[in-house]
């Protein structure tokens, strides 16, 4: 495990030699809450390579969710540019952003965010219904260990189970990138590991570029690269020479 300075974060893409999935330059996000501006991001530069598995760490309020939301086309920055492959997201229209989210991105949110009036399977179908090469919804749910609870409504599932439905929903569309905001926040160790194994397998087998926000530093060791955010900036980048399999993690 070697630590580097933020200035040479860009090299990861160069190292693999392919076009980066994300290219982020000077990303700034300012929220205006009445008189006081809140600087959620203060100039972030970042390249994300194909197939890369990235873990984002950082204290609460450091801008992790904001960064992920912008990468996922859910939010627009105040300043700076974001490219997804050749497409500049910061110039995309609402339509293009919708198409981007629809076909390229899989989201797992900080809060479970399921549609309470739909069952687990139906929540997954919500995605498979509108994408081109989806997985079978049942397979996606089996992948996260929920093969038995297909017809349960969110209210009939525990927090961890709901989170796994959310992950199944994200992976079911076979996305190009998978963005997960604290996917294991509410889970116990063994369930957390089941979820992480699923993510790891998708990354390895399908080559889905994956970015995970977590407060759990132990998870960092399964990443190719770890970004530590502080006060809206990338404070530290750690590149793992060897990724530890999720199975071996403990916290």
């Amino acid at each position: 495990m070697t630590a580097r300075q933020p200035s040479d974060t860009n090299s990861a893409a160069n190292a693999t030699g392919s076009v980066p999935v994300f290219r982020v330059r000077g990303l700034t996000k300012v929220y205006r809450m009445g008189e006081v501006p809140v600087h959620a991001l203060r100039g972030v530069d970042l390249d994300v390579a194909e197939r890369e598995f990235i873990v984002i760490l950082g204290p609460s309020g450091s801008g992790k969710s904001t960064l992920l939301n912008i990468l996922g086309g859910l939010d627009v920055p105040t300043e700076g540019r974001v490219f997804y492959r050749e497409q500049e997201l910061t110039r995309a229209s609402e339509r293009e952003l919708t198409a981007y989210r629809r076909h390229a991105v899989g989201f797992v949110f900080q809060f479970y965010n399921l549609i309470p009036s739909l069952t687990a399977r139906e929540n997954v179908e919500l995605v498979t219904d509108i994408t081109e090469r989806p997985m079978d919804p049942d397979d996606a749910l089996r992948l996260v260990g929920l093969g038995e609870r297909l017809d349960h409504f969110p209210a009939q599932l525990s927090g961890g189970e709901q989170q796994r439905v959310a992950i199944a929903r994200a992976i079911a569309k076979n996305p190009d990138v998978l963005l997960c905001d604290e996917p294991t926040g509410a889970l116990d160790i063994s369930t957390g590991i089941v979820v992480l194994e699923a993510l790891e397998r998708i990354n390895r087998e399908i080559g889905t570029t994956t970015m995970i926000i977590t407060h759990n530093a132990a998870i960092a060791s399964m990443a190719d690269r770890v970004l530590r955010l502080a006060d809206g900036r990338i404070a530290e980048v750690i590149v793992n020479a060897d990724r530890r399999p999720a199975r071996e993690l403990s916290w």
Partner: protein
Amino acid sequence: MRPLTRKLWRDVLAQRGPAAAIALVIGSGIALYVLMVSCFWSLERTRETYYERYRFADVFARLERAPQRLEREIAAIPGVARVRTRVVRDVALDVPDLEEAATARMISIPARRRPMLCDVFLRAGRYVEPGETDEVLVSEEFAAAHGLGPGDTIHAVIGGSRRPLRIVGLALTPEYVYTIRPGDVLPDSRRFAIVFMERRRLAAALSMEGGFNDVVLRLSPTADRKEVIRRLDDLLEPYGGRGAIPRRLQMSHWYLENELDGLRKFGRTIPVVFLVVAAFLLHVVMSRLVSVQREQIAQLKAIGYSNRDLALHYAGWSLVVAALGAAFGLAAGAWFGAKMTSMYAEFFHFPLLEYHLPPRVIVEALAVGAAAALLGGQAAVRRAVRLPPAEAMRPEPPRVYRRSVLERAGLGGWLSPATRITVRSLERTLGRTTITVFGISAGAALLIGGTFTLDGMDAMLDLQFNVAQRYDALVTFYLPASPRAIEEIAGLPGVIRAEGFRTVAARFRHRHRLRHGVLTGLEPGARLRQIVSSRGRRVPLPARGVLMSAKLAEVLGIRPGEALEVEVLEGRRPRLRLPVAGLVDEPLGTEVYISRDELHALLDEPRVLSGAHVLLDAAGAPRFHRRLKNTPMVAGVVLSEAAIRSFEDTLERTVGIVRTFNVMFAVIIAFGVVYNAARISLAERARDLATLRVIGFRRREIAEILLGELAIVTLLAIPFGLAGGWLMAWIVVRAYDTELFRMPLVILPRTYATAVIAVLVAAVLSGAAVRRKLQRLDLIAVLKTRE
């Protein structure tokens, strides 16, 4: 089913209470629309085919007597396509089950059946045949009212002698779809018959051989109607022509047209109130739905659903509700429409009054329902579309409350904490509170507007029969009778008092406007017939000049002080210019009054009588009628008492149905609004209320907070509802301001009280429904869900 569709159904199902309430309101609007418009089309279509098949005429004229050869000259008027001359006369009719004489309008028909203008439809029996006895066809409704049929015999006093008439058939004619006896203000099918008799026999009985006294015309499509009428009047003038009238002014047609007009007008306006209220309710419920589902919306957007998908999804919610409403409305509207159409058969006599619901009406109803839904939902849909996904990811910030007006005014100390919660929340949701108040008051207003007509009718009848027409019987003579006739009548058994009057047919003209009518000469001191304004004020007869109906003055565009041209159509037919001494806004008809002395002087005649108003004592009445039945000079007897009773009977049956619709729909609207308001505040405040329960509040206490809110809103709405009801009544009165009658704007306290009670009942019902939900409030579930 696609997952989003499934979500839609489950969302609707989860909100089934409010959804059903709104659907009912939309449905009521659609039902009223379908009801009135389909009734309109049923009547209109029936009328059109009837007029067409049975050759209803375009121009109608009466005269004293003209030789038959004039018919050829009439037919030669350019534009006249067909002519039918007739002998028509009103005679007294003796039917076994009626104490007094009825009136028969005798109309001549050809000896052999052939197509003719104003043809007859035979319901039963056969056409008349030559033979020993006089055979007649009798109007169906008269026969039905007396249980008469082919084979029965009635007696008529024709040309001074009593003749038996054998009924051989029951008939209808487009000329008398609506029948009202001359001199009557209300229809009375027991006392007015249309009797068809072979021409030569009738003419012989009336000494009219070789002549006619009535003519009807059919015009060619290109004819100039005014010109034809002018030339016809010129031709008939020497023969005592009473002035030709176009179809538009023909009595039966006019009533029918008036009714159709009312249906058309109200069919287009009343439902709008329902749809506006429904749109407001949808707006409230949908806004609430979108704000509860903001995270779901963000999520769907994050997954890749487009704005269009979401707009369709949320618009779908209101469309589903509208579709439910439309289904209910169409069914109810068609059902009530069929009922109401068959009710019209009591007033309008058609061979066949078939209910007809044109597909166009269904399409319009659906379109209107969908429009209301989309209008109501559009703000919420727009909000859903505009919601930035990243922001919606985080829960909505706590709602902003503040101290209410009452508290800021320093009255806070008086309010209990529970009341404070109620008042603050009402104030925070001021927009919604306003909508709720508006909706409830609309319910009350519709209730008043829909039911006050009975008050107006009562007031009108009361005025007409207890103040203006105090007589028990109205006796009319065929020919003006000598002044001594009044003493003869006064001497008849049972008569307490008799007052003579003189009427002449006349044409009233002012500049280019013209109306046909009757100039009525009354004694200034008459007690049995008085002139009364719709406010109940007695108006004295002027010593000089005429006192005329304010409505007629409006139609002719004449003001008091100006001169009215009066063309008398009887006797020497003088043309007079009489000053308009005053106007009177009578509720019925378009009368012109003059003092009898002046009228006699103008006509240059002795004090002859056209008829008499008679006051009877109850015990002697039967003998009076028996005597009159066989008096040849008497054309007919009109009884006020009987007229009211028979009309009130019909009114009770028919208005009863209409009242039921109105009350039902108004209660639906009030219930829908209150229930929705209650459900929404329950949903919004379930957390607060659950928290209060956890703290230790009793069920009763939290119920008071919620129901207190409902009570305040309902009480607030009542004064607005009453004012709105008055306004609706005013609109209805304006809409029914016709030459036939003007309904006075009278709303009795009982009508206001009914509206208030209906609103309170609706409020109590919805309060009970919400209270049941409150009892089942699941504390843990409420506190666990994040909002």
